[in-house]
């Protein structure tokens, strides 16, 4: 069975979009537009607060037990980095830039061994008024757009080096951060829509979904009629 594996943090996990987040909405869009069908398994392996180090530590085992045949068609989607950029009032940081770059390169090197397609989604900005520091933390957790922009550039650079599709969302969301990130960090329904549209635009230009394998279950085709409406 073809598979789409998504690794990332709370944002690909769907927080806090009542429609389930851009990953779930992407799947609906791809099915509705005939790119994939319901025989494709989408494994949303996104975890709240995950950073590049933690993703690197779980990616191997979590992929190994989901891929049954190495020749199956597969697509890896990565959407992380925000929690790597986090820093604390006492100067502590989560991931320094050098480690971040190394982690990203290690993840890519590992994916190349497994095979399949791959793309990265860039880091989303924050609404700084609510993240300097994050209101509800006692540790003085901070997110700044300057820092995010720098980590996002590392992702962009590595993807360019490795000739991997990179869906940049940072600069197009930054001017509207106040309305897109109501609580400071989490994209709302509209913001998830912007990420979704950026991903779709880039995917449709790429050849990742060309000839994606489908199963013609007549019963499934029949039930396409009552598919929920997808907003992009």
């Amino acid at each position: 069975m073809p598979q789409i594996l998504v690794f990332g943090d709370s944002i690909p996990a769907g927080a806090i979009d009542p429609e389930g987040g851009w990953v779930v909405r992407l799947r609906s869009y791809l099915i509705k537009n005939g790119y994939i069908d319901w025989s494709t398994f989408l494994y949303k392996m996104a975890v709240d607060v995950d950073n590049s180090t933690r993703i690197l530590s779980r990616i191997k085992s979590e992929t190994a037990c989901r891929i049954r045949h190495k020749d199956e068609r597969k697509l890896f989607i990565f959407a992380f980095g925000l929690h790597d950029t986090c820093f604390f009032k006492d100067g502590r940081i989560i991931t320094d830039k050098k480690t971040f770059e190394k982690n990203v390169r290690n993840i890519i090197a590992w994916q190349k061994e497994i095979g399949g397609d791959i793309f990265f989604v860039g880091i989303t900005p924050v609404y700084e008024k609510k993240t300097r520091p994050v209101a509800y933390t006692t540790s003085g957790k901070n997110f700044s757009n300057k820092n995010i922009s720098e980590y996002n550039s590392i992702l962009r650079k590595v993807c360019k080096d490795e000739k991997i599709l990179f869906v940049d969302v940072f600069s197009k969301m930054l001017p509207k951060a106040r309305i897109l990130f109501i609580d400071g960090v989490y994209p709302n329904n509209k913001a998830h829509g912007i990420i979704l549209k950026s991903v779709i635009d880039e995917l449709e230009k790429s050849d990742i979904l060309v000839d994606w394998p489908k199963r013609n279950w007549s019963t499934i085709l029949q039930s396409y009629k009552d598919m929920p409406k997808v907003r992009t």
Partner: protein
Amino acid sequence: MVIFMAEIFVFGDSICVGAIDTKGGWVIRLQRYLIENDMLDYSTYLYNLGVDAHTSEDILARFETETRSRLPHKEGRKVFIFAFGINDSCFFKAGHSLVEKEMFKQNIRKIIIAQRKFGGDVFFVGLTSVYEKKTNPLPYSRTGKIFTNKRILEYNSILKNVCKEEGILFIDMPKELFREAPSLVPDGIHPNNEAHKMIFEAVKNRLKNSMVFADWPKR
């Protein structure tokens, strides 16, 4: 202020992932229902950890590591939902089973022991039916894989009994799912939209009378 995060973990097979329901499967239907009825909100993370073709053996092997890497908030409220067994019940024309009954029973017990380390609530969902005309044997299987409802019900009883002994909520699937298998499980194994709706309804109705989602934390 401390924010208590809440998490729902669902471990199971392809049916738990949602195949082949165009509305995403019974797990997503349940999440939507719970949110719409104000029993939880979107600050609760639902981790659907169903994997195609997985048996109790496969789930036991990954349960602890996959749970541990999703628990940034140890003090948070959590519920574990297990929905597996149909792949365990599979057997081959040569006679042997994919997972023998005794092994199945032991695996369930081991999973329950592992779950207790993490705390939180837990419930099991019973096995779904197959359309035997398409599964006895599976036409595309080279090894002669067979699924029968008789055997599925035997495995379902094992699961039900272990849950009873351990005092764990077990949600049995409606008889209709077995009676009407040809129309509800048209590809042989995977419940269609209507059948996923039935599974969701069965789970929802049982949960209504339980304390599982009572006073669930919201933002």
